Every structure is written in structure tokens, then in C-alpha cells.
């Protein structure tokens, strides 16, 4: 849903001179399929072994009991991520300015809570107005 929501604001984001990228630990064969399926206008980048997510300090390890649960659903992260430790990034959306400084940060440990894409557009407008 996050990806579809970002797709929905992509033209506004581009009009403000900004771009969207999505980072996921998933391997390229999965990002390629997902990108095609959703017909996305921005890139999905494979953050292999969560190296960049780690630098943003977003990575956590799934507890054993949840690993077993996901396995029972048939979700095996080692296959999707080439990763045996069952680590994931917290859902997060950042705005980074041209100087490389974080100007908005939306991080939530509860993956069912996300900030609205419209809020991201407003933040980009504020950023554009301040430059």
C-alpha cells in the first residue's frame, strides 16, 4: 500500500523538483516483478543485507516466535532477502535535502501506521519555499 500511495503522489513530487526511491531488502528478482506489477514510475532499490537501513538505524530482528509464524504462512525471508537472520527494516519515510540533511523523518515500529503521502508533499512544498 505504501508503494501505491507513493505512486499516487509521484507527479506532485516531480513537479516540486524532488524524486522518490524505495529501499527494500528484497532481491532484484522480486523487486523487478513488483515494479512491473505496480507499474511504478520510481525505482525500487535492493538494499542488500540491509546495509543502508542499518546506517539509518532502522533494522530489527524478528523474534523466534514470529519467525515460526511467518514460516507457517510460507514467508521465508531467507529466500527473499538472501538473509538467514530474519532482520527487517522498520517502515520509514525520509525527506533528504540537496545538502544531504534529513528534513523529515517518519518512523514507526508498528507497520500498520504510516504517515499520509499528502503530508510528504506538504513537507516538500515547505522545503521548496525555504530554498
Amino acid at each position, binding site marked *: *500500500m*505504501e*508503494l501505491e*500511495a*507513493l505512486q499516487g503522489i509521484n507527479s506532485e*513530487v516531480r513537479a516540486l*523538483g*524532488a*524524486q*522518490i*526511491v*524505495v*529501499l527494500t*531488502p528484497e532481491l*532484484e528478482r522480486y*523487486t*523487478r516483478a*513488483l*515494479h512491473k506489477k505496480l507499474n511504478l514510475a520510481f*525505482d*525500487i*532499490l*535492493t*538494499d*542488500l543485507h540491509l*546495509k*543502508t*537501513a542499518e*546506517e*539509518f*538505524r*532502522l533494522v530489527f530482528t524478528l*523474534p523466534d*516466535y*514470529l519467525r515460526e*509464524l511467518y514460516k507457517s504462512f510460507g514467508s521465508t*525471508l531467507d529466500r*527473499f532477502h538472501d538473509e538467514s537472520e530474519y532482520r527487517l*527494516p*522498520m*517502515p*520509514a*519515510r*525520509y525527506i*533528504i535535502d*540537496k545538502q544531504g*540533511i*534529513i*528534513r523529515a*523523518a517518519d*518512523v514507526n*515500529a*508498528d507497520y*500498520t*501506521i*504510516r504517515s*499520509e503521502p499528502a503530508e*510528504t508533499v506538504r513537507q*516538500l512544498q515547505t*522545503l521548496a519555499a525555504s530554498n
Partner: protein
Amino acid sequence: MASLQERLDEFKKSFESGAPPYNAPHEVIETMHRATAELKATGIEGQALKVGDRAPGFTLFNQDHVPVASADLLRQGPLVVSFFRGHW
């Protein structure tokens, strides 16, 4: 169109009802709630990079196996970076 949070709430309601199409057992829902509560309790949200911090640079492969560098993108303008756990 419904907002992102409204759609997420709708999904959550449907999943947690235990009804089709997900048919999630009560124990599964409890387990997921427990995991989220435990993760929040670790304080991990407060450790993530925040406003004012310098963003780490990255060069990663996109879906077409083309390397994409954050430095190149930032030369063109601000960047929205979304971390996504995956499609599963």
C-alpha cells in the same frame, strides 16, 4: 480515494476479524500484536536517524540491475526515501 491510513486500517480490520480471505486465527493476531508492542518497547524508534541528521549515502541496484547513487539523485533535488520491508 481513501487515505493511506484509512486503507491500512481497513486491511487491519479485515485481517483481525478472522474472516476470509485471511482467516487469521486469534493466536496469530495476538502474536503479531505482542511482537509490535515488544519492538516499540525497545525504544528502537528513538534510535533511528532523525531530522537534522546527515543522511548516509548509498549506491544500490534498481529493479533493472542499474546502480543508483543517492549523491547523483541529490544533485537533481530533494529525495523521498521510503524503507519497505517487502511484498510478502
